[in-house]
C-alpha cells in the first residue's frame, strides 16, 4: 500500500525546487583567483628556475617538485582541505591538488598499515587520473605517430 502523494518524477521536481543550488558565480570567482594564484606562483618558480640556468627540461620539473612539496605539506598540516573547501576546482586542478589527493589517503589509511593501508590506498583518488592520463597520452602518441607525415 503506498501512501506517497507524489510519483517519483513529481517528487524529484519538488526536491529540486526546495534544494538550494550551489552559488555558481561565487564558486567560479573563488576557483579563479585561488587557481590563478597557484598558477602564478608556479610561473614565478619557473622564471626563477630560468635564472638558475636549470635548463629547459629541468625548470618545469623544479616547479612541479616545489608545488607538489607545498601541496603535500599543506595537506599534512591540515590546511589544504580548508583551501579546497573554499576554492573547489581552483585548488583541486593544479598539481598541488594532485599532491593533496595522494597525501590525504596516505594520512588516512596509515592505521591500516604500510602494505594494505598506505600502499594499497595511496592512489585510490589519484589512480583514475593516472590510469586515464597515461592511457590518453598513449592514444595521442599513436595518433601523432600516424599523422606526423602530414603535419610536419
Amino acid at each position: 500500500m503506498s501512501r506517497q502523494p507524489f510519483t517519483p518524477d513529481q517528487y524529484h521536481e519538488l526536491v529540486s525546487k526546495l534544494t538550494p543550488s550551489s552559488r555558481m558565480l561565487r564558486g567560479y570567482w573563488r576557483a579563479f583567483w585561488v587557481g590563478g594564484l597557484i598558477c602564478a606562483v608556479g610561473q614565478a618558480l619557473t622564471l626563477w628556475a630560468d635564472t638558475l640556468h636549470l635548463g629547459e627540461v629541468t625548470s618545469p620539473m623544479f616547479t612541479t617538485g616545489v608545488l607538489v612539496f607545498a601541496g603535500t605539506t599543506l595537506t599534512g598540516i591540515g590546511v589544504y582541505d580548508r583551501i579546497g573547501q573554499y576554492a573547489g576546482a581552483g585548488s583541486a586542478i593544479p598539481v598541488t591538488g594532485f599532491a593533496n589527493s595522494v597525501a590525504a589517503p596516505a594520512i588516512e589509511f596509515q592505521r591500516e598499515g604500510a602494505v594494505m593501508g598506505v600502499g594499497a590506498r595511496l592512489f585510490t583518488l589519484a589512480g583514475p587520473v593516472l590510469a586515464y592520463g597515461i592511457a590518453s597520452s598513449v592514444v595521442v602518441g599513436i595518433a601523432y605517430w600516424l599523422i606526423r607525415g602530414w603535419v610536419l
Partner: protein
Amino acid sequence: MSRAGQQTFVYDRPPAIAAHASIVGPKEGQGPLAEWFDTVLEDDLLSQKSWELAEMEMVRRCVLDALNKAQLPSEAVQAMLGGDLNNQIIASSFAARTLGMPFIGLYGACSTFAQALVIGSALISGGYLENAACTASSHFCTAERQFRFPLELGTQRPPQASRTATACGCALLTAEGEAPLRVTQGTVGRIIDLNITDANHMGAAMAPAVFDCIAAHLADTGRSASDYDLIATGDLGWIGRNLLLELCAAAGLDMPADRLIDCGASLFSREQDTHAGGSGCGCVAAVSCGWLMKRMEQGELSRVLVVGSGAMFSPTSSQQAQSVPGIAYAACIERKD
C-alpha cells in the same frame, strides 16, 4: 491489545526510561544544544589509536554513564541493543565486547536508535527482558573515510550534504521503575524509495519514508499530529524537513510546522557551515537522550514521537548507481504523571 493496525506495537507493559546519557564531539558541543548533552568531548579521538576505537570508546562511556545514573551494575543488564554506521557495526559490537553484555546488533542506518527503542520496548513488554540498554553512535571521522573521502582531501560539499555527527546516546529501559518517561508505542516503517540517486541528498531520500512511517503511526493509533507535543525526526536536515512538510500537505495530513523538529537540523547552527545539518545514528540518539528526554522530565513536553530515519545505501550500491532507499522507525515516548 498489543498491536494496532498494520505496523504499530502498543506496549502492554510500557517500559520506563530509567536513565539516559548522551555524548557529543567538540563541534556538536559548539552547537545550539550543547548545554543539554551530558558530555562534550574535547578530543574526538578519545586518546585512542584510531577513529573506530574512539567511536567504540564513546559507546562504552555512554552506556556506562546511563548505567551509573540508574545505579545498575553492567552485569545486571540483560541486553544491549545498538548499532552504528561502520561496516559490520564494529563500534557497537566492540563496545559490547568490553561491556560484556548480551548483545543484539542492529542496523537501520541513522534510524538505529529508534529501531533499538522499538525492539527493546517490545522485548521488555513481552516479558523477555527486564531491562535493555538501547544505544546508537556515529563518528564524523569513521563515516567520512567509509562513505566519502579521506579527511584531509580538499573537496567541496554541495548545499544538500549533511555532516555526520560525532555523538552517542543510550537509553536504559526497564520493566519496572518509578521513572516518569515510558515508551508506549513503536511503529516499524517500510523501506520507501522514490529513486533519489544523489547519496549526498539523504534528506530527500529519507523524507518519503519518514512521511510513510508517521502516516502509518497516526493511522494505526487513530491519533493526529497535534496529539503530540513534538514530532522529532532524526536527521532529515532542514531541506528534508521542508520536503516532509510538503509531503504531509500534499497527502492531506495535518502537520503543524511548530510541532515538527528535526534533530539534525537542530544540532548545528547555520553559522557552523554543516550545510543541510547533522546526520548519523548518534544524532537522533544524543538529541533524544539529551535535549528531548530532559525537556520531557522537566515537564515541558509530555508526549513526543521520535522518528529515526535511515538512508539504506552503501558505498557499493552508490557506485553502482543505485538509488537511496529510506527507512524510518517511530517510538512514542510519554510522560506518566
